[in-house]
């Protein structure tokens, strides 16, 4: 994939995903609680409770859990969009106090800006994030070409000049993924990015994401309801409980890399998925 290779960024972290040696973790949650406002906090209604986890540099983690359990909330904590009510969130060793730089995020809803065309929506991070911001004028053509290439990768060639409301739901979601990727972030957060896609398109995009990650080894946090997706892509899968969200289970996926789509039809893969499914089903009974 030419777009993928073109995106290999000089400063990408070199650590490999599977190294679990005592490096400082890239993302660290230390007993984090969040209530959406003071009043809810007083009433003890938390959206996530007592979440602790460590993500190594370059690790790909997936989060699964029932609807409304606090997955999106977790994402907001990890990017600093919401401050923790209690506990500490650290990213790259520093305490998170506000939104981070160099994050790419695809929200659960596509949230494309309705006054921008698809292309301009995808270009948005380049207008904000350095070093693109200051070189945008000089290298506009190059960046536009990159955005077009990325859109082509997700099957949106020919829709660059359409407005968001002229796209189907799944197309909007794909454009939103492009927007999260375009500036080659060090940390990529994807909140159910493939939820509105058919199985085939979805699997294609799995491969796109896998290749990008394989080449650049950024950190990924993926929220998904599709256990096959989680197992295929992630190094580690976290399972969250019903609301208020706690982390119930951490499952390392030790399938070899690089992984191929055919892997999903193999026995070990199916077993991992099944095991996760069982666990979640079991947890739900309580």
């Amino acid at each position, binding site marked *: 994939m030419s777009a993928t290779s073109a995106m290999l960024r000089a400063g990408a972290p070199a650590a490999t995903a599977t190294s679990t040696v005592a490096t400082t973790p890239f993302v660290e949650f230390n007993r984090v609680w969040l209530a959406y406002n003071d009043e809810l906090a007083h009433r003890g209604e938390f959206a996530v409770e007592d979440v602790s986890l460590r993500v190594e540099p370059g690790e790909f983690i997936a989060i699964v859990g029932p609807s409304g359990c606090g997955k999106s909330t977790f994402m907001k904590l990890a990017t600093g969009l919401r401050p923790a009510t209690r506990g500490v969130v650290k990213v790259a060793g520093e305490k998170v106090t506000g939104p*981070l730089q160099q994050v790419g995020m695809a929200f659960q*809803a596509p*949230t494309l800006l309705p006054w921008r065309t698809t292309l301009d929506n995808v270009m948005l991070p380049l207008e904000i994030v350095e070093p693109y911001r200051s070189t945008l004028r000089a290298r506009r053509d190059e960046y536009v070409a990159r955005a077009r290439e990325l859109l082509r990768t997700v099957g949106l060639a020919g829709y660059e000049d359409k407005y968001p*409301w002229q796209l189907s739901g799944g197309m909007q979601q794909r454009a939103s993924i492009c927007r999260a990727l375009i500036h080659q972030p060090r940390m990529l957060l994807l909140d159910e990015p493939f939820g509105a896609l058919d199985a085939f398109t979805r699997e294609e995009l799995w491969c796109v994401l896998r290749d990008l990650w394989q080449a650049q080894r950024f950190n990924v946090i993926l929220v998904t309801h599709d256990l096959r997706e989680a197992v295929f892509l992630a190094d580690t899968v976290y399972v969250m409980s019903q609301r208020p969200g706690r982390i119930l289970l951490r499952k390392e996926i030790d399938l070899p890399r690089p992984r191929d789509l055919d892997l999903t039809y193999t026995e070990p893969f199916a077993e991992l998925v099944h095991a996760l499914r069982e666990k979640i089903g079991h947890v739900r009974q309580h």
Partner: protein
Amino acid sequence: MMTMTSAQQRRVQRVAPWILLGAVLVLWQGACLVFDVSDFILPSPASIATALFQYWDVIGGHAWRTFWTTMAGFALAIGVGVVLGLVMGSSRLAYAAGYPLMTAFNALPKAAFVPILVVWFGLGVGPAILTAFLISFFPIMVNIATGLATLEPELEDVLRVLGAKRRDVLFKVGLPRAMPFFFASLKVAITLAFVGTTVSEMNAANEGVGYLLVSAGSAMKMPLAFAGLVVIAVMAMLMYELFAVLEKRMTGWAHRG
């Protein structure tokens, strides 16, 4: 309507204001004839047209003066209104502190300030430009501030998550989202700007449609005075058309009903 093509609909919409205008004029003229309304109360369209024709050059001179004065004041109002709106819309403290006072100030008839402006700036365009500005920046400010204050946090988050600075969020999301509000306010503000200029000219000027109004009024030439009003109305209508075109271009995304 159901059976019209969109091209036909567009044509109907183009002529509609003219038809309505014609209807209003016919009604007005009819009422003047039927109720025998005298010229010194409400001149008929016919006598206004006569006056327009007769004093064409005089009116033209005054109108030009009023036009550019208004434009100057209006440009100032856009600048200041947008900036104040941005400040008010993005800072809760500025909103809480400034809004009540601004409202209070704007409830005062600007005519009361014209004498003060004249004393400071002398007779001439100064007071007229300033009055036009003072009267018309408020709606712009209010609408921009409201547009920003009602911005969906989800859209804001799209930029915040990139580590965007406040200014970026304002310019990339806040302002575009506030554009429909802005254009609504422009339509109100331009009418007020014309009122402001005219009022100022009525109070202190030797030129402009406002001067024409009082001097024609005091000479009991009501048709001429109303011809002056007609000219203002036409100028306002032209500006409206300009804004309509701009609005269509810039906020087409919001008008897709």
